[in-house]
């Protein structure tokens, strides 16, 4: 056996042993691990060969047997994760309140089923991730930031049966399935509602005037050959006519709804896939950005939307 291979199997052995000895007091756990590490090193020196490494480890015994024996020596009961741990994970997922969340964390910290480092990671992950995601404006990832910690804790739980893992992961699975379902129903993960944006085309004093933008804040006038033409193509110019082409998309009750202006100037509801996407693509919008004065298909609803970069198409139609 090569030295590298002997190193690898002894490292794996020690890692397993460390895991198995997890509930021994740290000072004694480290002492045992140091001693067994030294035992392995001494054995290698004694036989002056790495070929015997499996035999050395075999004589040392299965890490689980050593840990079981150690627990007995230290009069520790083997802890089996169960109801408390499942309750902690469910509270972290579904508490919907600071108090419930804190109770979940208290249960996590009181349980011996997690190492201190895992408890720390489980506690700090949402504290760091949620504000970071919020500040970054990626509100859709808030859910991810919130479920990362329970998922991590469920997976890192020690001394658990498969049933406990299953019971912990079922609520997590429900959250994921419900979120994906909601995203599919609402068209791209829109939560709450809002307006996604569009192009507007008007005739002012006998000339086409075009704007792109996703909000009144970033709306800007652009050459009409830089935007996708309205449904039905460009209309004839009529002096002082008001609107000659108008496609817009709004979000009402969490769903995209699209309307096109026909060549005859009649607004017509249509499927959103049948019209060009607004500049920058369909935008997910937060509930806070939903128009509150959007009645029916009023055009002004168009401009209450997310602030996203406007990406004009690269090929331009000629009006």
């Amino acid at each position, binding site marked *: 056996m090569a030295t590298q291979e002997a190193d690898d199997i002894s490292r794996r052995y020690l890692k397993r042993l460390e895991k198995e000895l997890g509930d021994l007091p740290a000072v004694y756990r480290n002492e045992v691990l140091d*001693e*067994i590490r030294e*035992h392995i090193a001494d054995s290698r020196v004694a036989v002056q060969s790495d070929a015997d490494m499996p035999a050395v480890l075999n004589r040392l015994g299965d890490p689980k047997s050593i840990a079981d024996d150690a627990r007995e020596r230290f009069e520790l009961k083997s802890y089996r994760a169960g109801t408390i741990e499942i309750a902690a994970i469910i509270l972290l997922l579904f508490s919907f309140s600071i108090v419930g969340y804190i109770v979940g964390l208290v249960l996590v910290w009181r349980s011996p089923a997690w190492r201190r480092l895992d408890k720390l990671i489980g506690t700090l992950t949402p504290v760091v991730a949620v504000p970071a995601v919020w500040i970054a404006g990626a509100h859709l990832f808030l859910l991810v930031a919130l479920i990362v910690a329970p998922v991590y804790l469920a997976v890192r739980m020690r001394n658990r049966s498969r049933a406990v893992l299953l019971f912990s992961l079922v609520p997590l699975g429900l959250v994921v399935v419900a979120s994906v379902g909601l995203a599919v129903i609402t068209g791209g993960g829109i939560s709450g509602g809002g307006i996604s944006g569009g192009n507007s085309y008007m005739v002012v004093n006998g000339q086409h005037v075009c704007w792109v933008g996703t909000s009144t804040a970033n709306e800007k006038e652009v050459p009409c050959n830089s935007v996708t033409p309205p449904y039905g193509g460009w209309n004839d110019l009529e002096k002082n006519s008001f609107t000659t082409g108008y496609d817009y998309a709004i979000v009402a009750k969490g769903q995209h709804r699209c309307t096109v202006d026909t060549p005859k100037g009649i607004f017509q509801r249509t499927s959103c896939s049948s019209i060009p996407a607004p500049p920058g693509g369909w935008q997910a919008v937060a509930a806070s950005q939903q128009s509150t004065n959007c009645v029916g298909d009023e055009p002004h609803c168009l401009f209450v939307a997310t602030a996203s970069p406007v990406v004009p198409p690269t090929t331009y139609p000629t009006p």
Partner: protein
Amino acid sequence: MKTGRDVSAADDVVGNEAMVAQMRKGALEYCVMALISDDERYGFELVQKLRDFDGVVTTEGTIYPLLSRLRKDGRVETSWRESPSGPPRRYYHLTDKGRESLERFAVQWERFRDAVDAVLNERRPVNNGS
């Protein structure tokens, strides 16, 4: 195919193992204490010494939690000494408390062993076949 005799022999081996394991569990810590009652020894040396006594220890790794436990109880102490072949080693020696505990065990063990021997000798000789 395994015969009934094979299965029975295998059962015997398992049964013997379980029986010896029970006896070993209680006595092992005193065996360890006995081996460091006169001389300090480090872990690997102690395990090697135990190997000289057949059946005293099978899972060598269990010696180390046992030593930790004895140290926790104050029956052994450790001291660090330089090693010729690597980092310093932890040497184990018996404390006064450990020595007293070992003496008590030795007396009790002798009484117990004699009593068990006497009981076993009370058996009637096994009659083979006739």
